[in-house]
Structure formats: C-alpha cells, structure tokens
C-alpha cells in the first residue's frame, strides 16, 4: 500500500568487533570511548524498510532511536541508508542504563500510534543484551500481530507474509496489517551507505 508508513527502531550498541572489557567495579562493561555502531539486526530492519520503499510498497521510512545524544550517529546511519526521517527520543546519560525493552516498547507503541505507522520493523534482538523482547512487547502493547525472526517478508495489499526461522525449521505466517516484524540474520544483506547519501544527512 503506497500509504503505508514503516517505523524502524534502531539501537546504538557497542560495535560487534570490539573486545569487551568488564568495568573494575563489576557493574557492567566499559562503554566510555568504546566504538559503537548500529545493532546489526537493526541494520537489516532498516534495509528491509528501505527496500519496501524502493518497491513503492511503503510511503515513508521513519527511524527511531532511544537514548543519549550519541544516538543521533545511529540515526544518521539510518538516514544514509535511505530512511526518510529520524526521531531521537532523548534519554539522559544517567538514566540510559535503566532503559530496557519494556521502556523502549512503550516509546515505540506511542510513536507508532502518533506517526500512524502500519508496520513496525525491528531487529530480532540487540547484540549487547540479547533480550529478544522489544518486538514482542511492542506488538502486545499495540495489540498488533507479530512476525518475529523473519527471514523473508512479502507485503501484499493489507497482508504481510512472514517466513520465520524457528527451532523446528521454517514457519510461514500471514499477518493482517498493522503488524510488528522483527528481522533475523538472513532477511537481507544491508547496503553500504553511499557517499552522496552520507553527505545528504549533514
């Protein structure tokens, strides 16, 4: 549907290639001065949303990130990949540690309703906490159907067919929009942002 708006959540996490170190007081891992980037599964979600827009099945891709001001870097990456707008829900550094799936789902729920999104695309889990909860909680709060661990997504009219990777193999379900879908590894291969696109985010 050319009127469909996709809301894509993107999380800023410690870069996958960094060797993690535990803080001396054992309260967590060292994040100061450590390289961060967009959660790889969120990249896959952004890529899928942009592909849907290129196929003219989605009208607008809105990227959202919750956290301190550095989240704007992550939003910039999403814009460079092809998202139309970025929304930064600012959470001060001091409170950011207590931000978890429950809080983020509440934010996404409110934004999905405010922005009148018909599709919420998320990564299946973040590589720092591995919670695998935000997508499911958001769907429950919105009372929308959910297609998690998606390895294939097909939009047709007001339905979305999702092929899911589950423990027993592959499962195909069909959801009526609006719906929440979480991206798994094999959904797509995210594009590199091009220089013109990166310059355009300035």
């Amino acid at each position, binding site marked *: 549907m050319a009127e469909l708006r996709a809301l894509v959540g993107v999380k800023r996490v410690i870069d*996958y290639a960094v060797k993690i170190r535990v803080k001396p007081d054992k309260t967590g891992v060292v994040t100061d*001065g450590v390289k961060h980037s967009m959660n790889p599964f969120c990249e896959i979600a952004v890529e899928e949303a942009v592909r849907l827009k290129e196929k003219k099945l989605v009208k607008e891709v809105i990227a959202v990130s919750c956290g301190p001001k550095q989240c704007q*870097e992550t939003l910039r990456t999403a814009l460079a990949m092809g998202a139309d707008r970025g929304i930064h829900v600012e959470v001060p550094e001091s409170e950011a540690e207590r931000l978890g799936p429950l809080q983020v789902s509440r934010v996404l729920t409110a934004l999905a309703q405010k922005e009148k999104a018909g599709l919420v695309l998320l990564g299946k889990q973040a590589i720092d906490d591995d919670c695998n909860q935000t997508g499911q909680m958001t769907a429950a709060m919105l009372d929308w159907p959910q297609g998690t661990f998606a390895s294939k997504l097909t939009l047709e009219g007001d339905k979305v067919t999702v092929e899911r990777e589950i423990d027993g193999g592959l499962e195909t379900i069909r959801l009526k929009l609006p719906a929440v879908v979480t991206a798994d590894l094999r959904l797509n291969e995210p594009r590199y942002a091009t220089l013109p696109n990166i310059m355009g985010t300035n």
Partner: protein
Amino acid sequence: MLRLCGGRLAAQLGSLHGSLQKPACGSVRGVLSCIDPSLGLNDVQKEFQKVAFDFASREMAPQMAEWDQKELFPVETMRKAAQLGFGGIYVRSDVGGSELSRLDASVIFEALATGCTSTTAYISIHNMCVWMIDSFGNEEQRHKFCPPLCSMEKFASYCLTEPGSGSDAVSLMTSAKQQGDNYILNGSKAFISGGGESDIYIVMCRTGGPGPKGISCLVVEKGTPGLSFGKKEKKVGWNSQPTRAVILEDCAVPVANRIGNEGQGFLIAMKGLNGGRINVASCSLGAAHASVVLARDHLILRKQFGEPLANNQYLQFKLADMATRLVASRLMIRNAAVALQEEREDAVALCSMAKLFATDECFTICNQSLQMHGGYGYLKDYAVQQFVRDSRVHQILEGSNEVMRMLISRNLLQE
C-alpha cells in the same frame, strides 16, 4: 546461528573466531585508542570512514591474497566501490563525482587500503586521472569522460614516465605533431598502472619545444589505432593491478582530446601528482595501520619462554615506536591534505614532505610487524607480508622519495 551462508553479518560473526590467517578485518574496526584513525574527524567523515572500513574488511580483505597471487584486476569489486562514490571522490558532482575534500579522500583511501593496499592504490590513481579531466578539461570533455570514469564503467591510467625519463619527467620525449584535427603521437610510456586494462590513458606528450612549456596533456582512448601495450610486468607487489608499457606508433588523437592548452600539460600533470602523493601516502598509512593491528594481535597470542610476547619490554617498546610513527605519518598526511584543499602556498612542499615521511615510515612499520611475526610473517598465508610488498613501491613512484627531497630543498633554498 554461525551458518556462514551469504549475509555479511554471518561473515562478521565468523571472523570473531578468526585465526591468525585472517587479515586484520575484525580488529581494525575495534578500539586501539591511540591509533584510532577516526580521532579528530567530524561526524560525517566518521560515517564514510566507517563505510570504507566495512567495505575494505568485507569486500577486499578476504580476497587480497588471491588477487595478489593470481594477479587478478578486481574490476567488479572496484565497480562496487565506485557505486558508493569512491570512483571520483574529489570530482565535482555534476559529472558524477562525490565532490568531497582532499582530507576526506585521504581518510577513505587509508581505510580501503587496510583491505587491499594495491587495489586501493590503483583506485587512487584512477581518482587522480578523473580529477585532472574534471579540473582542466572543457565542459564537453568533462561531460564526455568523467561520468563513466566516476562510475568505473571505464578505467583510467596516468602516463607520464618513459623508459628514458623517470625522476627527470620534464625530459619526456613522446611527441605529438599536429596534423589537421589530430595530433600524431609517437613514443612509449613505461610502468603504467592499469596499462592494457584501462579505457582512458592520460598521456603527457611533447607538442612544443624542450622543457616543461612544450608538454601537453592528451586523452587517448583504448582501441585507437597505433595504441598498443607491452608485456604485463612481473612485480614484487601491486599485483592486483597490471603494469605495462604503453606504446604509441603514429597514433592519431583528436585535438579535441587535449586537456587544457598546449604547453599546460606539465602543470596539469604536477597538480595531479600533488593530490596523488597524498593518496598514495594514505594507502601506505592503511597498510601500516593494518600491520600494527596484526602485530599487536600476534604479540598477545604468541607465547615463548613461558609468556605472551606482549610481556617482553623490547617488543612493547617496538610496538609503541611503530604506533607513534603511524600517528605522526597520519597527521602529516592530513595536514598536507588540508593545505592542498585550501590552496595554501606551502601545499606542494607539505605534500612532498608527507609523501616522503609517510611512505618511508609506513613501510618500516609493515616490515617491523613482519619481523614480530617471526617465521609466520614470511608465509603468504599471513597478510603482513603483502602489506610489506605492496607498500614498498610507494617509496618509489608518484615522485620517488629522492625527488620529494628535491622539491622540499628547492622550497627551502629559493631566494
């Protein structure tokens, strides 16, 4: 979950368990704070540096050994790079370029060179050629030649050196005699990177009398009768790019293909080289950065005399020296790049100093990293030897480091 089928994410997760054999793809993105190449850059620069690093580690590093050993010219990979805007980085956007600064270009080449130094060096030469046409060509030439070069649908080569004129470039002898609407070219060029594969040859030739003012710059297209190539040279490094002599025998080139005015050719060639020197030095930087990361990882992993090599003070100090010289080289290059893009009067001297310093230091760093690897460093299974071989020639071409000293001393001693 670790099924390595397609998906670059799968490759990322796989490389976390990589062995010594893997090039520095994973750890180059990590934090090694003092040598982090993103320090001092703005947000946008960090963004495209990240893209360049990702491209290098995913599209180039896994294949750099094969490209070297089989002497493959990685056309498809370079075209993918061009799609991201790396084909005409500092070329104006109305002809397909990315219209970025010299500093931006240096950052990008440095990152790409960690994936394959030889291929990145060729990409930088290509960029230099497109810029020359963009800057000095007329509108018709810009719109004819630049777009397919920016997309790397076509490749370009820079032809200045001859068998009889290397450092003494001004003494070149390839002649171009005007006959009607054409120049008839006779002569040969040596050591041309991309020779035989490129579609566009930027040839500096003599249209007038002796000296620099007699030299003009012509675009010769592949397939022109009278244009032929020598054998593919067998080299110590830079094996992912073919190097051949370019032979011109009564080769007729339209006068419309002349870039700039008659007699302007040497100036155009030298202006191209100023940027080219920063670019090639940036490639050395990438090789050295990757080598330092590889050395560091090896020192942590390898044990002798009951402890990791990293506990040995000599090696700790050696690594510190390598890192210090790496950062010094990087600062010189970036400083020179800024001077060039601001068209400062000291730009030429700074570019020469940066090229001289960085190519020498970075080769030494790569070589020292190889030494730290012990016997393993000498095996082609390990990437460090390729960084050594590829960066060696940077001390020789684009103006040898001896010529750099000539330019610097001339600047110091001029009245």
